[in-house]
């Protein structure tokens, strides 16, 4: 790897030289600004949805130049599904990584643990940090340091088609039992299916697990809990929903089929989060936006809750332009920016002060999701957080397609976790 190091050093040296040249020419140009002015390029990897969210974020990101005219913002949209891998490839090799990345909440501790992120305490990136929602700030902490700034927060609820509910004469189900009876009535009255259960992504399984009072792991006690009775029950619940025809599911194309089935009015309900609102409202059933109802996820036998998610902005530790990157992260998470994002995209802010702004407080989606987020179940913010899903996904799909039993499935996930989390109970 010696060559690699040499090359990196060379590139770094080159970067420094270029930067020096840049500032030289600037001062030659007769600039009057003080030496503290930010300059250079900030590359930002955004992972927002292409076609709707990305345009807004690009516009906002490039607006940074208005405040800091000598900084060029390079906006790069990397598909969410690829971003984690791409960032890891780039960060470990020392070349090709961006300065700032939009990091999903579960990635943040993992990247931090691998040494890829710059600690932000005491930098310009963290401004008014007491203003951030506590649960949003929690995911940015690792080993007592702050490695990211919360950008948006989210959770999940039941999306329902009000017209179908009216036709069937039913109310929004509050728990799993009601979900089943409501679905049966809907089927009987309208011939439509009650719920689309996303079967190819473990994230959609979590609310059922929380409903049985379970969790994947107990991070405080260092205990693996998915194999417990609550985990088995949760697997039984989802299997029963599919077997009883209260729900349909797919092992592939889940997202697309879910959105299509709901948008075309083929199913009456789905479980989803704020990120799906824009796409859902584009569907033909929701030409009248008022037809979309959102309610808390149904409770299980021992509780109710949906996972807390969201995105942070993190700064790459190897960035050659750390100061501008800190400022950029701050700008993108400032109250003003969050307010604009909330207004244009209905994404939930992470700052308390933004929620009380009139134009945000009157946003229907945000008003609905705010209490959901307040009650959302915090995920374990451990470096392995991102790796907890893959074993669940495999067994979840296996259970739903009848390849294994709920008991064996829960046990298999627990076994996989034991390999991952050494010394945990």
């Amino acid at each position: 790897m010696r060559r690699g190091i040499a090359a990196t050093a060379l590139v770094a040296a080159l970067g420094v030289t270029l930067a020096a040249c840049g500032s030289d020419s600037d001062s030659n140009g007769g600039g009057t600004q003080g030496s503290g002015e930010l300059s250079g390029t900030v590359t930002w990897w955004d992972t927002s949805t292409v076609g709707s969210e990305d345009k807004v974020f690009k516009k906002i990101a490039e607006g940074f130049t208005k405040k800091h005219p000598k900084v060029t913002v390079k906006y790069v949209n990397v598909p969410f599904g690829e971003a984690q891998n791409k960032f890891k490839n780039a960060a470990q090799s020392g070349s090709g990584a961006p300065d700032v990345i939009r990091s999903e909440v579960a990635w943040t501790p993992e990247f931090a643990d691998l040494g890829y992120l710059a600690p932000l305490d005491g930098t310009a990136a963290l401004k008014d940090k007491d203003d951030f929602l506590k649960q949003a700030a929690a995911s940015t902490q690792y080993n007592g340091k702050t490695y990211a700034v919360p950008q948006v927060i989210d959770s999940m609820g039941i999306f329902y088609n009000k017209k179908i509910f009216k036709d069937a004469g039913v109310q929004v189900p509050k728990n799993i039992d009601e979900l089943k009876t409501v679905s049966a009535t809907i089927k009987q009255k309208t011939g439509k299916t009650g719920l689309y259960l996303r079967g190819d992504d473990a994230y959609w399984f979590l609310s059922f697990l929380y409903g049985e009072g379970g969790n994947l792991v107990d991070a405080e006690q260092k205990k693996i809990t998915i194999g417990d009775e609550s985990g088995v029950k949760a697997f039984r619940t989802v299997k029963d929903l599919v077997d009883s025809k209260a729900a349909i599911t797919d092992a592939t194309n889940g997202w697309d089929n879910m959105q299509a089935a709901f948008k075309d009015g083929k199913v009456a309900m789905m479980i989803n989060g704020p990120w799906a609102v824009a796409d859902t409202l584009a569907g033909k059933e929701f030409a009248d936006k008022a037809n979309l109802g959102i309610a808390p996820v149904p409770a299980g036998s021992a509780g109710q809750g949906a996972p807390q998610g969201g995105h942070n902005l993190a700064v790459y530790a190897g960035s050659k332009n750390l100061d501008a990157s800190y400022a950029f992260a701050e700008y993108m998470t400032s109250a003003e920016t969050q307010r604009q994002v909330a207004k244009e995209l209905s994404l939930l802010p992470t700052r308390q002060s933004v929620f009380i702004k009139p134009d945000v407080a009157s946003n229907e989606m945000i008003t609905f999701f705010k209490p959901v987020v307040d009650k959302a179940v915090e995920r374990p913010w451990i470096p392995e957080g991102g790796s907890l899903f893959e074993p669940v996904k495999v067994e979840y799909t296996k259970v739903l397609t009848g390849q294994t039993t709920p008991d064996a499935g829960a046990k298999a996930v627990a076994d996989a976790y034991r390999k991952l989390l050494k010394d945990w109970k």
Partner: protein
Amino acid sequence: MAVDTPSQSVAKAGPPPPPRGRGRGTGTGKPRGASKRSLSTHWYAWALVAPVVVVIAVIIGYPLIRGIYLSLTNANERNVARSIGVNNIPATYEFVGLDNYAEAISGNQFLGTLGWTVVWTVSCVAVTFGLGLALANILNRRIAGRSVYRMLLILPWAVPPFVSVFAWRFLYDERRGMLNQILSGAGLDAVPWLNDPTVAKLAVIAVNVWLGVPFMMVALLGGLQSIPGELYEAAEMDGANAWQRFRHITMPGLRSVSTTVLLLSTIWTFNMFPVIFLLTRGGPGEATQILVTQAYKFSFEISPRDFAQSSTWGVLILILLMVFAAFYQRVLRKQGEVW
């Protein structure tokens, strides 16, 4: 190719052309030392192969050797060397000997995946070969519109796999896919193409066959065209029926083409990453996961990325295929095939 032994090359090579550099600077002095002589006699050949050797050595050779080394360690994403900007984190993984191999071979996961990979390879290659042979035989006749048929049949090869596999994925979709819409139009029940473990296995095999038939067909068609027509005529005069002619003229005539395409096709199918990855990602559950997609999963889709295990599986795949190739060559040689 690789099985071409020097003795055979000599046998068919005849007197090798004098590859000395005429009129070039290097060949002027009379070389004395053995190495010098070897350089002067062979520099032409070496120069001709040098680009390939350099590219392969750098891009495949180094990672391959590193892969073999990593498979003997407990390397993962957290303990390998990383360079973050100017900070370099040194590697802290340890040498663990053959532990990874012992674990892979004794565990269910490797053997289970291997079992399906073998089923997948054998069925894909067998069906592809059968269909390719049948179509090649038909196309080798005088038949109206032959060149049109041939072009249409080669089409799956000409379309980039990520486009066609993507198309298949949506044709297969249980709820909105074309196949189920056709079935329901015919009054039949929807088939859970990619949602049921068994059906999904058949579905991925079908797509791979669809992709693989053109190559097979073209290769076998070439083989058929190189069989002299007189052989068939003579056989017909002797009263041989169609089956006998196929059995005793066509099959032996295709033998050398078949042996090579079967070997290649087996290797390619065994490692056919895109079809599985783009179609099912190994799902539902792990029903269609083959060795190579699982190895990819170890080094990309789980975290921390498990480089040691991924490399171990990679090396095991390599060993399995090398053993297969050696075995294949030996069987052929026993049957008197000069290869």
